[in-house]
């Protein structure tokens, strides 16, 4: 499948997003804002529609509107009297309805032009798209590496972060903006409706097997890349004749399969270690049988 240029580009794009989305997702999940990605994804749809209507770039529209939306969510969450979940819900509906309505105003505006953004269109990634994706992913990962300690403290306990003199408002905003950029990038690969899955599911899968934050983040990034490549390859392999498998949903299904496998694996590992944790401390680690005692 790598004989085709479009598949090479698709594969690179998938790898980059499989790497970046779970990296941001680890901090988002730690902050218990797992649905933040969904909220921003819906808002981005309005941006795409604005790009279509004004015949400019849907990508640019999505970037501008989703970054603004992310800032709105943060302000609503911290300043307003609405809880985080309600703030997200408001933007979910506003973004989706706005996206469809704005598209109706486009010349010959049919909502079918939105479909490729809703569910992804990775096989149509151009060289220029790939460059934009690579730059945005590099920026996102760079900011995460630079701010990793501050973001860890912030996501762990916002009050402790403030007592340590961190500028929590600014940091929260940075995280939301990074999430928004990641979502716009991932829009091409899995689509806006499934974007959040790539941020959350690999993290959920990784933490079945890990004890630490760093380990979770690294394993989630590995799982993300596996899911992206596996889903893409699967959709290519199984698309024969009339059957046409969309890569986006295939990637999400592979990620979910990885989650089920790690949940089962984690359960087995914990069950094996449970007796040795409950009983007296032993050097061997395994349960002691009657004969040895």
């Amino acid at each position: 499948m790598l004989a085709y240029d479009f598949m090479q580009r698709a594969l690179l794009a998938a790898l980059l997003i499989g790497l970046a989305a779970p990296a941001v997702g680890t901090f988002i999940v730690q902050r218990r804002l797992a649905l933040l990605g969904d909220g921003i994804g819906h808002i981005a749809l309005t941006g795409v529609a604005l790009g279509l209507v004004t015949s400019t770039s849907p990508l640019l529209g999505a970037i501008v509107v989703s970054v603004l939306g992310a800032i709105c969510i943060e302000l609503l969450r911290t300043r307003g009297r609405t809880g985080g979940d309600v703030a997200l819900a408001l933007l979910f509906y506003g973004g989706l309805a706005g996206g469809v309505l704005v598209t109706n105003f486009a010349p010959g505006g049919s909502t079918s032009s939105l479909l490729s953004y809703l569910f992804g269109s990775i096989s149509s990634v151009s060289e220029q798209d790939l460059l934009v994706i690579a730059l945005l992913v590099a920026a996102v990962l760079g900011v995460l590496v630079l701010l990793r300690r501050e973001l860890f403290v912030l996501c762990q306990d916002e009050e402790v972060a403030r007592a340590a003199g961190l500028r929590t408002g600014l940091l929260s905003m940075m995280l939301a903006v990074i999430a928004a950029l990641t979502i716009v990038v991932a829009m091409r690969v899995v689509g806006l409706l499934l974007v959040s899955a790539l941020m959350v599911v690999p993290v959920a899968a990784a933490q079945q097997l890990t004890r630490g934050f760093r380990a979770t983040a690294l394993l989630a990034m590995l799982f993300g890349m596996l899911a992206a490549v596996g889903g893409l390859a699967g959709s290519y392999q199984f698309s024969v004749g009339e059957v046409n498998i969309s890569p986006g949903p295939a990637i999400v299904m592979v990620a979910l399969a990885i989650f089920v496998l790690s949940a089962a694996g984690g359960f087995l590992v914990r069950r094996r270690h449970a007796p040795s944790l409950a009983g007296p401390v032993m050097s061997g680690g395994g349960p002691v049988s009657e004969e040895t005692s």
Partner: protein
Amino acid sequence: METMMDAVFELQDGHVRLDGREILHGIDLRICPGEVVALMGPNGSGKSTLVRALLGLVPLASGRRSVFGSARFRDWARIGYVPQRLSVGGGVPATVREIVSSGRIARQSRLRPASRADRAAVGRAMAALGVDHLAGQSVSRLSGGQQQRVLIARALAGEPDVLVMDEPLAGVDAENQRALADTLSLLVGQGHTIVLVLHELGPLEPLITHSVVLEHGRIVHRGAPPEPSGECALPGHDHVHPHAEPEPVSLWRALVGKTGRH
């Protein structure tokens, strides 16, 4: 300029309003270096809010606050905050070492990786609290007492001069409470200033140099710690004092009246 005589925390006529309701009504409080101060009072008396006001986590509606003699204090590495938390951690697991290491945040620069000094301080903090053997464990799987020790180790890792703890005894069993008292007495011996929000003095009593009792957002007693008496002193008394119930308030009044110092 900071001098040796500067109070660690000073609050003059501090009023705090949260959601339109005044929680603290004109608090005057001065905490000096080397003191071990217990902020006490029934639930809803404003003791946690007072601590958060001292740290600048809630804004003052009016009044003046200074930390180490400065109204615009920035050197947060000097203060270690231990929040009231029975369960630590967010949605992602974190190891004990990761949590304790994060206490170095105010002393680290963004671009540099953790230094040898960072790792040494983290090691000392974990050893001081007896959680070094748990370094690789996930915090969420530890007991309440162990989690509390991890949170204190996190504050200590920043090598602060002052420790501020909100209810460090909550959810900690008697044996761990005594272990905690031993640790704190070591820290007091090293010259740390300690501010504690406490519901009961418990095994910390001998360490406390000053106590401040709040009731309805006002200081009603300051000086030596009040002697526990009556119902509260009985072992097995479950310290559940629902908000706005008259009984615990009168209990505190009885305590205050008994010591007779205002």
